[in-house]
């Protein structure tokens, strides 16, 4: 099902942040109820534009992972619909190949070395071996793992396994990168370092990122836009553009605008908790 869409109208509806590109993903009154009765997500409507770094922020049970999985095509909505748009702006009812996903667990194949793991999506897509190896070598050096291309996953630390998982996503040269609390299982130092590395990658490559997190600090540091969600039932309660500096380093984390944004987001979440929204 392909049809032309009026991109500007969608953009006006969503609230235009700076650096707005064409819409690449959108959810139209999407809901999800599981067969066992769990009402994971109530009607959510949002659009994601090319080049944005959008965080889905909320507590457990707010439906953020469910929404991300629906964007990935791993789950289908019980109500409403999800649309994917390619570079020409044509919408399709199926996700294109230009999406990559990073999960909370590194999810590497333990029987294969790091390079073979990173090459998996390319192998599955039928990319010739030489081209695949070249792209994997580049992706591994982007995440700083070029020395470990021949190691087995069990020989790597948690942070390194996560880097390998990200390299696997980057090797496909995706237009959209979906990340489901990728650094949640790591310690704070590794997490901060990976946040900074991810941000540099995003700025250098210009892909779109949808990033699920329950950390307000992480959301403000990384994003150009934060979608705040609440639980019971899972729903979107706010859409906050983050107008931070172009170059964000550790000093941004303690600057006044950062703290203010954190306060605003925290406020939204607290009000939702008290049942005011």
């Amino acid at each position, binding site marked *: 099902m392909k049809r032309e869409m009026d991109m500007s109208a969608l953009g006006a509806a969503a609230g235009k942040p700076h650096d707005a590109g064409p819409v690449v993903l959108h959810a139209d009154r999407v809901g999800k109820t599981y067969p066992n009765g769990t009402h994971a997500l109530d009607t959510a409507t949002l659009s994601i534009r090319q080049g944005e770094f959008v965080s889905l922020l909320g507590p457990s049970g707010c439906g953020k992972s469910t929404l991300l999985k629906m964007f990935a095509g*791993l789950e289908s909505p019980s109500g409403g619909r999800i649309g994917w748009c390619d570079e020409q702006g044509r919408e399709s009812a199926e996700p294109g190949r230009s999406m990559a996903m990073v*999960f909370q667990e590194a999810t590497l194949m*333990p*029987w294969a070395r790091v390079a073979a793991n990173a090459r998996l999506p390319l192998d*599955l*897509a039928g990319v010739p071996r030489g081209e695949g190896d070249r792209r994997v070598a580049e992706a591994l050096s982007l995440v700083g793992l070029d020395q470990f291309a021949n190691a087995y996953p069990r020989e790597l630390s948690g942070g390194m396994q996560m880097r390998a998982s990200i390299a696997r996503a980057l090797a496909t040269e995706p237009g959209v990168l979906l990340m489901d609390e990728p650094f949640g299982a790591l310690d704070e130092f590794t997490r901060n370092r990976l946040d900074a590395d991810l941000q540099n990658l995003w700025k250098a490559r210009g892909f779109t990122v949808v990033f699920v997190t329950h950390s307000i600090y992480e959301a403000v540091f990384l994003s150009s836009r934060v979608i705040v969600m609440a639980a019971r039932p899972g729903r979107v309660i706010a859409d906050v553009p983050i107008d931070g500096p172009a170059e964000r380093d550790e000093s941004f984390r303690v600057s006044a605008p950062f703290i203010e944004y954190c306060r605003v987001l925290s406020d939204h979440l607290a009000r939702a908790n008290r049942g005011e929204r």
Partner: protein
Amino acid sequence: MLKRVIDSRAARFLAPAVLGVLILVAWQVVCRTLSVPAYLVPAPTDIADTLAADGPMLMSALLVTLKITFLAFGLSVLLGVGAAFVFVQSRLLEVSLFPYAIILQVTPIVAIAPLIIIWVKAPVPAMVICATMVAVFPIISNTILGLRSVNPGLVNLFKLNKATRWQTLARLRVPSALPYFFGGLRISSGLALIGAVVAEFVAGTGGTSSGLAYQILQAGFQLNIPRLFAALFLITVTGVLLFMAMAWLSKLALGGWHESEMAH
């Protein structure tokens, strides 16, 4: 210091070997001091003498038994893996056929072997069929378990990358199943040997009449107990060597990445 000796790789071979020697020495001493007759419990030296004297005959009998064991084992692997693949791909086939596979496993081979020998006139194929019936189930069961025990995160990853059913089978399910498959091999190799011996036992003169089980039967009738023990000893050693061979294969395939092969 003692702990370092105990943990060393040499200890893994030396410890059971030392224990074995101690048991043999104790056995020999008890037999001689109590003057136990050889037709009741032969002393280790008697068994060794018999091995030397009857060596060629026992070895050719061992070869016959081994041939049946390997044929049955090979057939079990082929049938077992094939059945497991089919069951995993088709729920309907699995639900219909698995109960019969279980029936196959729990039916005592001693009861069925005579029937099979009557139906399948040729002795060697009949023995092989009996031994395969005994050895096939662990491979089916373990391989199915392995093909199904896939990391759900990896299943999602393959789905996300639009992998075909064949790609998922070859690149995800088969490697995930390997540790379980090798576990099944270790059990099945011993069972193939037992199956071969039991089948020949039960078959009596209807069987090949030339394997180790036949030698044991004959030695029993003639009250040549040292020879009986010698034949038993050969079967035991064969079983242990088969197990070690499977363990070595397992290490080859899983070493480097699976927890079961990591040094403690």
